[in-house]
């Protein structure tokens, strides 16, 4: 069988070149006259969130993204609580593309009844070809407003105590067409902290990765490392989350397991107490849907 194939191959090598030689010539002329183009990396991640925290991706201009995020209780809650399913917290959020690279967002989480507003700016894009740059970088800033009732109404409570902030510089790179990695140096500032020895401003370094399994399926990991000398009022652990992205047309479903109860960076960093090895694993899922509200400009500029 293979001998026949070799013979056919050799024969076809004799016949084909004579006819297609001239056309390849033509193609070569075309290729050599093309001006070098810049190839902008697309789809570094499938969603604007890696698991809980932000990814470098932004929504396009005029695109409104609606997210419903669920986080249940811990798996070690036992069968009575259906392994955590009975205790669920939810976050509803909207993110809008003012431009392809500038997004604003608004959301509310039932966990500590916290509203959040954010602004996200992708200022550098990974590209190859005529212009080269190895990373995509996005800056995110959020403000959080805790609207729960004061623990002690008699005490002198300040409105500013309800506020906290987070800022992160996301740096990501897509390797080939299957693996993406992201670094998230993050700063969280809480106006009011739990203990006198706790720092108001804490620094953490996040690292994450996304692996493309099929065109519609991705596996994600997200880890935030918080150096331990910053908070002493409670035993904190570093946030580790594993997730899967399933995409169908306009929806992205994200299923994940994490040791963090909170769903935003302000809680991932400095508020994570769960231990994976103890079974303090929260199951959660996000549903994300995009709508085109604004008109995208018909003619795109070739940058």
């Amino acid at each position, binding site marked *: 069988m293979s001998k026949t194939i070799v013979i056919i191959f050799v024969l076809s090598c004799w016949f084909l070149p004579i006819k297609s030689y001239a*056309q390849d010539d*033509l193609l070569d002329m075309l290729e050599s006259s*093309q001006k070098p183009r810049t190839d902008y990396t697309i*789809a570094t991640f499938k969603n604007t969130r890696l698991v809980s925290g932000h990814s470098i991706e932004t929504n396009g201009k005029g695109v409104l993204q609606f997210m419903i995020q669920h986080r249940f209780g811990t798996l070690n809650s036992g069968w009575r609580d259906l392994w955590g399913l009975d205790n669920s917290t939810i976050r509803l959020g909207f993110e809008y593309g003012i431009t392809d690279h500038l997004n604003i967002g608004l959301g509310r989480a039932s966990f500590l009844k916290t509203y959040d507003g954010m602004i996200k700016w992708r200022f550098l894009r990974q590209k190859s070809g005529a212009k080269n740059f190895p990373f995509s970088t996005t800056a995110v800033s959020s403000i959080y407003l805790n609207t729960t009732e004061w623990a002690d109404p008699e005490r002198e409570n300040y409105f500013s105590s309800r506020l906290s902030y987070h800022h992160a510089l996301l740096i990501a790179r897509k390797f080939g067409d299957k693996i993406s990695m992201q670094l998230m140096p993050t700063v969280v500032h809480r106006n009011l902290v739990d203990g006198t020895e706790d720092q108001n401003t804490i620094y953490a370094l996040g690292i994450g990765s996304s692996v493309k399994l099929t*065109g519609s399926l991705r596996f994600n990991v997200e880890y935030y490392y918080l150096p331990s000398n910053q908070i002493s009022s409670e035993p904190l652990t570093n946030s580790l989350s594993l997730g899967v992205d399933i995409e169908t047309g306009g929806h992205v479903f994200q299923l994940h397991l994490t040791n963090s109860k909170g769903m935003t960076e302000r809680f991932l960093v400095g508020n994570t107490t769960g231990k994976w090895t103890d079974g303090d694993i929260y199951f959660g899922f996000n549903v994300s849907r995009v709508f085109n509200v604004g008109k995208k400009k018909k003619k795109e500029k070739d940058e």
Partner: protein
Amino acid sequence: MTQNGVISFFSSTPVEDIEAVNNQVSSILNTENGEIAAVLLMKAFNFEKALMQEHFNEKYVESDKFPKAIFKGQLSDFETLQLSEDSKQVRIVGELTIHGVTNSIEVNGTISQKGSSIELFTEFEVAVADYDIKIPGAVRDNIADTIKVTVKFNLDKV
């Protein structure tokens, strides 16, 4: 030769219409023997919806793996064709490569010449499955099995 040829495609289903335009198609025609070649970058197809463009590139045609679509062919009986300002019917035969798969195609088009510029126009259908482009079940109703492709080149003398 042109660097700004226009190729657009259109998919129509009861659920959704999808349309994209690429106006950076390069093409060259040898006016001595009617040989023609064209190259385009898949990422240069513009869709109205950003997400559609991303899905097209990342999921369906896998532009990172197969960045270009190529056509190598021949305008049949070119020597007997008298180019003029009137549009004349012409038969285009050749090999079309999309998503790494090459198929022979034979389509009808029209050709005319205004001054030193040659205008070539053709419309034909492409079956998505012929080029190994997989459409997942969830969106099968949104994307047609055959896509209508429209080609318009204004070739200038070099």
